[in-house]
Structures are given as structure tokens and as C-alpha cells.
């Protein structure tokens, strides 16, 4: 997977976020402050502009620029969190111009570690970690079992989507929704839902 592949991933995320913007915002209206869809849409639109203005030469540089732009432009908690995720993945890739599935898996693990460190969230807290952690685990398993790249990305996307859906019955222990206590139960976590979109976009980039 080369720089073009990762640029395609970011484009797919941008389209998915735009298409899902109102849905994400509705999820956030239920248990947060009703800005997740618009914030991410603004952030990824700014990422598109930044990448077009100074096209990075490596997958790592592309993801670091993506993360830095998200941190600066999103405005909500998802800015630092997604920004850290993309930056950590980009840093894990270093100067490489071609990323293997095993390196991608290590990059997703680095993203997960960064998000966990920044947000102090664990699985079951009803956050993006509930989609990101299963996706990272599925990708790692798929690579270990020697699955084809498309199959590995399919497994990661499926795990992220299932992880997001599984946040519905949970009570939030981190993030804005945690202020709602038991009232946060019965709603899908918006951050987990957008993380599922990010991994769906990764699968879509691979089937382009």
C-alpha cells in the first residue's frame, strides 16, 4: 500500500463522513453536544485542502499531516483523538514508501495506543476505542493468519462496525456522554460510529 492508497483512504473517509454527517450528529445529539458530524466534516475538508496544497511523498507524512490538520481544525474532542490516531500511525510508518499489511496492523495498534493514552479510555467505556480496539485486533489476527489484504481490511471493517453497534447498551464512562450517566444507555456512541466509517473507508480504498 503506497501513498496513493492512503490518499484514497482519506478521500473515502471524507466522502463517508460527508454522507454520514447528519447521522453522526443525530447520534451525538442523543448523548453529546450534536456536533460530531459537522466537526469531522469540517476537519476532513480541511485535510483535503492541506493534502492538495502540499502533497506528501510518503504514507507516513500523509497521515501525520492528516492528523495535525484534524487536531487544528475539528474543534471538538474528536480532533485531538483522531488527530493523535493518524499521527501515531504515520509516525509508525516512518519513511517507508510501501506499507505491508503487517506494517498497517502495527500502525493501527500505534493509533489505538495513542488514543488510549490521550483519552484514558478502555474497552467498554462507550467511546471510539470500542470500535478501534476490535478493528486493530481483527487486522492483527488476519495478518497472522495470512489472509489476503482485502480480506484483512474486510475483517477490520466488520469488527469496527460490530464494535460500534455493541456500544448501544453500554453506559458511558468517558467523554461528554459520561455526564449523562444511565441516560447514555440505548444510544450508539458517535465516536465508535465514525471509527466504523473510517475502517469501512479503508476497505473501500482497497477495492478501488
Amino acid at each position, binding site marked *: 500500500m503506497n501513498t496513493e492508497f492512503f490518499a484514497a483512504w482519506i478521500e473515502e473517509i471524507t466522502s463517508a463522513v460527508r454522507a454520514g454527517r447528519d447521522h453522526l450528529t443525530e447520534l451525538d445529539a442523543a448523548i453529546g*453536544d450534536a*456536533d460530531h458530524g459537522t*466537526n469531522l466534516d469540517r476537519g476532513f475538508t480541511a485535510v483535503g485542502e492541506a493534502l492538495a496544497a502540499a502533497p506528501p511523498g510518503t504514507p507516513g507524512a500523509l497521515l501525520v499531516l492528516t492528523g495535525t490538520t484534524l*487536531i*487544528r481544525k475539528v*474543534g*471538538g*474532542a*474528536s*480532533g*485531538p*483523538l483522531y*488527530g*493523535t490516531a493518524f499521527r501515531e500511525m504515520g509516525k509508525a510508518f516512518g519513511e517507508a514508501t510501501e506499507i505491508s499489511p503487517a506494517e498497517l496492523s502495527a500502525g493501527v495498534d500505534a493509533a489505538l495506543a495513542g488514543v488510549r493514552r*490521550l*483519552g484514558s479510555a478502555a474497552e467498554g467505556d462507550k467511546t471510539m476505542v470500542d470500535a478501534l480496539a476490535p478493528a486493530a485486533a481483527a487486522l492483527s489476527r488476519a495478518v497472522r493468519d495470512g489472509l489476503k489484504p482485502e480480506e484483512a481490511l474486510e475483517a477490520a471493517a466488520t469488527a469496527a462496525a460490530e464494535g460500534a453497534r455493541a456500544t448501544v447498551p453500554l453506559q458511558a464512562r468517558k*467523554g*461528554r456522554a459520561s*455526564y449523562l450517566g444511565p441516560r447514555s444507555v440505548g444510544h450508539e456512541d458517535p465516536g465508535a460510529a465514525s471509527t466504523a466509517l473510517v475502517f469501512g473507508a479503508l476497505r473501500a480504498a482497497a477495492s478501488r
Partner: protein
Amino acid sequence: MVGIVLISHSGGLAAETAALARQIGGAKVPLAAAGGTEDGGLGTSPDRVSAAVEEVDQGDGVVLIPDLGSSVLTARLLESPGQVVIADVPFVEGAVSAVVAAGGGASLDGVLAAAEEAWHFRKL
């Protein structure tokens, strides 16, 4: 003197808390409010917060006091051990305590400890 940055989702909340703390703790403390997004909405702007840190940094360290959600995460991005530290404290009471301590010439650790005392302020 130790600098203090108040980081809130709301520009108005940060600015008014700063005004209150300054009135109680003294006008000479390097104190900045960094609330809201760049377009004036609710949220936090890392650019605004890092500009505020630079503004109040006199070389004796800076204490960041966030309110909730993204302000905490934004503050964590700017942490630098021994130089830029986060006070995990009630926003208004912590801000007042920190400003009073900084105005009295306390060290970075002293300002942090004073802010944390705000957990024990009883109103009744």
C-alpha cells in the same frame, strides 16, 4: 511568575472566569483565557490554546486549567513535564486558587497544589 491558561468549551466562560480570578487574585498574574473555537463556536482550538501558553509563559512554567471534554484532550496535547502541566481541578475554584498562588510567587508545583486544594472548598 507561573502562567495560567483557562481552557473552556465556551469563549465567554473562559473570559469571565479569568476576569473573576484576576479580580480576586491580582491583575499582575500572567493569565490567559482560551475558550471556544476560532469562529466563536463552542469547542476548543489548539492553535488558540498554544498561543495563550506562549503569551503567559515567563519561564517559570504554565498551568493549564481545562473544563471538560475536548478542552482536557487539547490540554493534554500541549503537556510538557515540568513546564506545561494540567491541573485536574474544578474550573472556577481551581482558577481562583491558582491565580492567588501564582500572584503570591508560588512555584509551578505550588500553584498546582493550590489549584488542587480547590477540591476541598466547601460552600456550606
